[in-house]
């Protein structure tokens, strides 16, 4: 049986091995994904991001418990977890410590946790995280929680990958919360103030609310990718609001949780579900899928083109150009032109 077939068959060891192949970007991994891709697109992808120490892992732990055993009557879901921690820029090594907070999930066959090192990627995820998520999706996990590295301002890749993005804050980050928010608040579908039993939670909530009120509650990041290509500038699609309760715009709710005690988790779970329904009813769910796949395709195309082109360029020419660049006889742009032309004499 092929690796992909074993994964579809529910073999956890095969799944774990496939994830390694994907992380190492091997041919075997790519072949398996070719087989599995048709089975993807079923899971609800939930991103969890926020500054280091705000409680992302504990919250993921609690959310997974919630999906395994939700409040009255709701259906249980199987849960895949992908937790990314940073690789050292010096040694390339990493300490992946998110499992420390997820010990409650041990022994549950409906949960699969995979830790990933970011391996030099700067957007808060590893370059292969999207593919790892596809594998978990194909393996049949219904909810996939994706925890980013501790994020500050620019680690916004998660918003492109996930259907629903949670941004986790904590009280006591103080006045500089304004600074933290600038980039990352924009991608929040739901804002969570974790550690809400700590002093200062009102101040944090006021600051977040104030900032939201100033902002245009728009799907800014997403529009940039979907529509600017056609019109040059993001275009708002006006649609009649014929679904009572589902306005055109989603305004991110602010929720309080204490993840270590499990407080506020059920409310968070129902807000996530409300967001999913909003995405489906407004057609945004499909649009986000399209955007994500388009940008994935773009990235892979770029990487493949560069690799293919690079194999046509003789190493000595490349070295010569590099030397001329180093001694300043070529500018970087000139170097690019020389290499694209494949000829030093231009």
């Amino acid at each position, binding site marked *: 049986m092929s690796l992909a077939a074993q994964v579809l068959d529910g073999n*956890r*060891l095969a799944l*774990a*091995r496939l*994830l*390694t192949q994907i*992380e*190492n*970007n*091997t041919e075997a991994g790519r072949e398996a994904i070719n087989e599995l891709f048709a089975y993807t697109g079923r899971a609800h992808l939930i991103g969890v991001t926020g500054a280091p120490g705000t409680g992302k892992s504990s919250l993921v732990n609690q959310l997974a418990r919630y999906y395994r055993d939700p409040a009255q009557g709701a259906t249980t879901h199987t849960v895949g977890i992908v937790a990314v921690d940073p*690789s*050292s820029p*010096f*040694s*390339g*090594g*990493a*300490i*992946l*410590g998110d*499992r*420390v907070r997820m*010990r409650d999930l*041990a*022994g549950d066959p409906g949960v*699969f*946790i*995979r*830790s990933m*090192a970011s*391996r*030099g990627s700067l957007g808060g995820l590893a*370059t292969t995280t999207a593919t790892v998520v596809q594998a978990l999706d194909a393996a049949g996990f219904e909810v996939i929680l994706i925890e980013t590295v501790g994020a500050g301002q620019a680690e916004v890749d998660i918003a492109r990958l996930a259907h629903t993005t949670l941004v986790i804050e904590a009280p006591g980050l103080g006045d500089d919360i304004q600074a933290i928010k600038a980039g990352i608040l924009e991608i929040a579908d739901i804002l969570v103030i974790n550690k809400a039993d700590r002093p200062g939670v009102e101040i944090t909530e006021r600051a977040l609310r104030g900032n939201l009120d100033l902002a245009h509650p728009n799907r800014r990041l997403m529009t940039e990718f979907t529509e600017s290509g056609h019109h040059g500038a993001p275009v708002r699609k006006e649609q009649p609001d014929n679904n009572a309760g589902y306005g055109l715009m989603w305004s991110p709710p602010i929720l309080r949780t204490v993840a270590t005690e499990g407080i506020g988790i059920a409310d968070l779970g129902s807000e996530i579900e409300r967001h999913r329904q909003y995405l489906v009813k407004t057609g945004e769910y499909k649009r986000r899928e399209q955007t994500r796949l388009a940008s994935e395709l773009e990235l892979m195309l770029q990487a493949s083109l560069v690799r293919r082109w690079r194999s046509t360029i003789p190493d000595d020419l490349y070295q010569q150009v590099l030397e001329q660049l180093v001694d300043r006889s070529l500018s970087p742009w000139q170097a690019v032109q020389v290499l694209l032309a494949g000829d030093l004499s231009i």
Partner: protein
Amino acid sequence: MSERKIRVLVAKPGLDGHDRGAKVVARALRDSGMEVIYTGLRQTPEMIAEAALQEDVDVIGLSVLSGAHMALVPRVLELLRANQQEHVKVFVGGIIPDEDIPRLMEIGVVGVYGPGTLTEDIIREIRSAILGAPTA
């Protein structure tokens, strides 16, 4: 970025709360370029085997200072075999009496590291166990 990374699970089975040694080793392995999954204190052998499977690790480092190593380590090895993960190399560190070491090696432990072990030695032996490089 297709370079193969050695993935190591560092875990503390059983009930002792002394994780300084495990953290020092985890940090040293990180600094040698390995990816270390650190699971923290008070793990059962079942939790360790499950994490090893999900994370598809090459190596498990077990730190035991409670004296329960002759119960915990064989159980971990047994579970690895049950999960078809007998290829995973298991190292043990902590307070292990000399007379227990031969027995641990006999049941499949690749190395036992007591106090005073140089982290470079651990790194070199893990590398050689995984990549087959000479242990010079």
